[in-house]
């Protein structure tokens, strides 16, 4: 047996509520981290996964305190140690990589200086040796030209590079244990895949143990040897990563895996009902009882203990794991989406370009935008009634910018947006007809921000009803109730404030508000990316249902290709504000495709240890679209030469009907990509 480096024993952490009750965030957690292994801790927000990771370095957040148990490292309990002793361990023995490296780095100090600081604290190297070590570390995290990177400030690096610097700083003290708290969550898909690959390499190269905390089973699957699944402050399942992902024997993990959309499956995954109980509300019985498909009477009053199964090397907290053991292959069933496509075109976007450039005085006076290299250019999409079209791309690809222009929030520089083939939508919000505003509604990414915290649900939904239809009194109430029913929320939600709702419920309210205007087109801006996986599927299913009922057209913006695959009829891939590929979603996900689509598809992380991401292109970040030629020339691995740099590529149409904008002939693209 390998050496155990961290032993968590019966750990409970909690806080005292205003009434003096003890509320537990972590309930009786016991686990061991062995030398050299990578353990993934996965759970929804509020499951206590971050609290557990922080406790492993002897830190308990303000307001929380240790109720019982210990975290033993090198045979001493970290939670009882004095700060002075902890300082010697943190950084040297246990290092932490935070979620947002951009915020964790000091903005006014150069990268090299910050790493040097870490080295001074956590190693005994002399000054000359330290300089050597800095470039060694930067090399190890695969940053290009370490000497110049060391002289830069954090803001001069991209998100992925900042995260790499954070890894380098954590490695400065050659720690035995590395704690990673959602290290790739804020990054683009391609960057994320690269950072994960780097972490894998470092784990092998240095033999460091890692604890990887994430809500993303896809990311966890790529890095971890062992997985701990947490639910409501408890460990519900713990075991080797392959077994857990392939044959989960806890109903929660089973349901979770079923609710994740996958690239290989078109259609919406099944959703899990309900949401995780709030801390302090569970007293008796299994915490997953409400949402469990396998629950029995005894689950209601008795809470199951964590049971260790010798033959599987797995611990599980469920009475019924035996029945799941026999048939727990995750057979994902999807609800095929019905297309309600009509021939009529509802929105024509032609030659649209949008610029963020600051106007000079003359242009301001003449009220025009002059910019020969605008952020978004040459957008031509015709959207049919009842269609769901998805705009896909990494951050900075201009997908949200296009949405804003359709909504009238951002003036276009040129081009026409036409509704119903006859009405020109004015590019300025103030000049738009109220009815034109009504037909296009927005749903935002983060329901915490899109709902006024000081309004009740009733007041929130009443706003469009009052504005567009002038409803009052009883009729208004009746309409609100109907809308709440449509999004599957009870009447009693009317008097609640957004803070009293869970993330999924808030997003449902936002959906209800959008539908209140009886719109023809709904713009969805990353509507599921702020939600937990189990809730995401439910919101997607709801959107699909409403679309079938009302015949609404969706323009769906997302960076998550699997979600897009699940819900959309057609996909438009954008890079640097230029279209790369447009086509029916089933064809875009097949080859041949645009080299950029290939990169995106390769970087998708699936919750399956056997499917590794393909890293096709470098994850460099380009600040500005190129002046001429193909927008993807800077990162393309198939670049032909001068033609890509000088000429805008032509549209090529494949047999199945998707258009690809590339200089490479389709046949060659196909040949290269299938291999």
């Amino acid at each position, binding site marked *: 047996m390998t050496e155990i480096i961290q032993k968590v024993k019966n750990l409970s952490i909690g806080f005292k509520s205003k009434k003096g009750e003890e509320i537990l965030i972590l309930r009786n957690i016991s686990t061991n981290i062995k030398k050299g292994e990578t353990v993934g801790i996965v759970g929804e927000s509020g499951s206590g996964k971050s609290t557990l990771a922080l406790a492993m370095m002897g830190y308990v957040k*303000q307001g929380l305190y240790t109720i019982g148990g210990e975290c033993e490292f090198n045979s001493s309990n970290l939670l009882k140690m004095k700060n002075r002793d902890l300082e010697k361990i943190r950084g040297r023995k246990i290092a932490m990589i935070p979620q947002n490296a951009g915020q964790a780095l000091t903005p006014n100090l150069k990268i090299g200086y910050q790493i040097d600081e870490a080295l001074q604290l956590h190693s005994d190297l002399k000054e000359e040796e330290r300089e050597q070590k800095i470039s060694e570390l930067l090399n190890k995290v695969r940053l290009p030209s370490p000497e110049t990177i060391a002289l830069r400030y954090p803001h001069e690096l991209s998100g992925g590079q900042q995260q790499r610097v954070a890894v380098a700083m954590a490695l400065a003290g050659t720690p035995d244990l590395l704690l990673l708290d959602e290290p790739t969550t804020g990054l683009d898909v391609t960057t994320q895949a690269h950072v994960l690959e780097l972490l894998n390499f470092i784990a092998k190269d240095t033999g460091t143990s890692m604890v990887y905390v994430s809500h993303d089973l896809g990311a966890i699957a790529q890095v971890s040897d062992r997985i701990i699944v947490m639910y409501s402050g408890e460990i519900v399942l713990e075991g080797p990563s392959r077994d857990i992902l392939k044959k989960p024997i806890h109903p929660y993990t089973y349901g979770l895996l079923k609710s994740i959309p996958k690239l290989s499956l078109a259609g919406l995954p099944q959703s899990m009902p309900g*949401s995780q109980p709030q801390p302090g509300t569970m007293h008796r019985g299994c915490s997953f009882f409400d949402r469990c498909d396998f629950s029995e009477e005894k689950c209601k009053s008795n809470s199951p203990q964590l049971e260790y199964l010798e033959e599987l090397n797995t611990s599980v907290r469920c009475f019924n794991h035996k029945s799941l053991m026999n048939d727990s292959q995750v057979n994902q069933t999807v609800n095929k989406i019905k297309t309600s496509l009509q021939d009529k075109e509802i929105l024509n976007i032609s030659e649209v370009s949008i610029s963020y450039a600051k106007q000079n005085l003359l242009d301001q006076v003449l009220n025009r935008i002059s910019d020969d290299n605008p952020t978004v250019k040459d957008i031509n999409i015709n959207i049919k009634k009842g269609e769901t079209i998805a705009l896909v791309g990494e951050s900075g690809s201009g997908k949200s910018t296009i949405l804003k222009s359709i909504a009238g929030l951002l003036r276009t520089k040129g081009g026409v947006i036409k509704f119903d083939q006859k009405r020109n939508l004015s590019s300025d919000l103030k000049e738009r007809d109220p009815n034109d505003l009504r037909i296009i509604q927005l749903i935002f990414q983060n329901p915490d*921000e*899109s*709902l006024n*915290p000081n309004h009740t649900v009733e007041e929130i939904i009443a706003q469009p009803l009052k504005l567009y239809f002038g409803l009052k009194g009883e009729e208004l109430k009746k309409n609100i109730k109907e809308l709440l029913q449509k999004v599957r929320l009870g009447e009693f939600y009317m008097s609640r404030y957004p803070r009293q709702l869970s993330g999924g419920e808030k997003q449902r309210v936002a959906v209800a*508000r959008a539908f209140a205007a009886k719109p023809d087109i709904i713009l969805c801006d990353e509507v599921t990316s702020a939600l937990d996986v189990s809730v995401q599927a439910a919101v997607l299913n709801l959107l699909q249902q409403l679309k079938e009922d009302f015949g609404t057209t969706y323009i769906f913006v997302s960076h998550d290709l699997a979600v897009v695959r699940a819900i959309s009829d057609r996909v438009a891939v954008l890079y640097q504000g230029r279209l790369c590929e447009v086509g029916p979603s089933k064809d875009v996900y097949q080859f041949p495709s645009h080299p950029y689509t290939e990169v995106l598809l390769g970087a998708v992380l699936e919750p399956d240890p056997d499917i590794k991401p393909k890293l096709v292109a470098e994850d460099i970040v380009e600040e500005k679209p190129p002046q001429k030629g193909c927008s993807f020339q800077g990162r393309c691995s198939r670049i032909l030469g001068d033609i890509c740099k000088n000429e805008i590529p032509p549209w090529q149409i494949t047999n199945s009907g998707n258009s690809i904008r590339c200089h490479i002939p389709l046949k060659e693209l196909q040949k290269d990509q299938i291999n």
Partner: protein
Amino acid sequence: MKLDNIYQEEKKSNFAKVSEIIITMASRPSGFIGLSILIFHVILAFISPYIAPYDFKAINPTLMLQAPSAEYWFGTDDLGRDVFTRTILGGRTALTITFFGSLIALLWGGLLGIFCGLVGGKTDDIVMRIVDAFLSIPWILAMLLIVSLLGTSTEVLIPALGFFYGKGIVRVARAATHDVIAKDFIVSARARGHSNFSIIWNEIIPNVRDAILVEGAMRWSWMLLGFSSLSFLGFGVSPPTPDWGLMISNARGLMSFAYWSVIAPIVGLSSLIIGINLTADAFAKALGIDRSTKAPV
């Protein structure tokens, strides 16, 4: 669903909300002290005319500069008037004028700040530069000018004080609006086509109200000090109306041998200012706008 019972908190009436805030304020020692002092002063202002033992303007040369005694608790001043009577009456004018002055400051400062924050662009630039220009004028000089031109009547003092103390609120309200304006619910309201007025009234004010009220409460105490300074200089309340600033001004020359006639108004004025300050602090904490939060680690 069982989970629906988690949140019992229902929509509360305004009265319930206000009383909850006051209870939270009073549950801290500093808040309790502040509230007690403030309430004491307010009650005193209402009832002082009825409990004053003597006539505040009765001059009696035979009783000049008496030391505190059982008959004259705080002694008498240089004209033989009872200092206790004048002290308990001395806060009335200041309290009333500055209270209404603060309301005016809150109203115009708050609304203009919110408007500038929402509209932005050139309008915002121009208005804010004008506000900056006014901020650079020492208020006491400007006040002296106004008072000497228009007189020291209440109708002049309230709007003038309200104007000069509202400039700062413009900035606070504008900054608070900027915090809110970037949120998606404002973008959403704009995209729906609501008017500026509707956005200010429905979306912004509920979210910036607390910050502006706290700022207004702080301004009240500053204004009180400012008003007393005016009286001290002889431009506020005109004699023989009792006022702390005026009393301090009159008695300061006699401080070395008749300290009682100056100490009583000083205690009155400073206790009221401290009371308002503590209350404003407790108010901010009760609303969750705590400016002294520590870093998380």
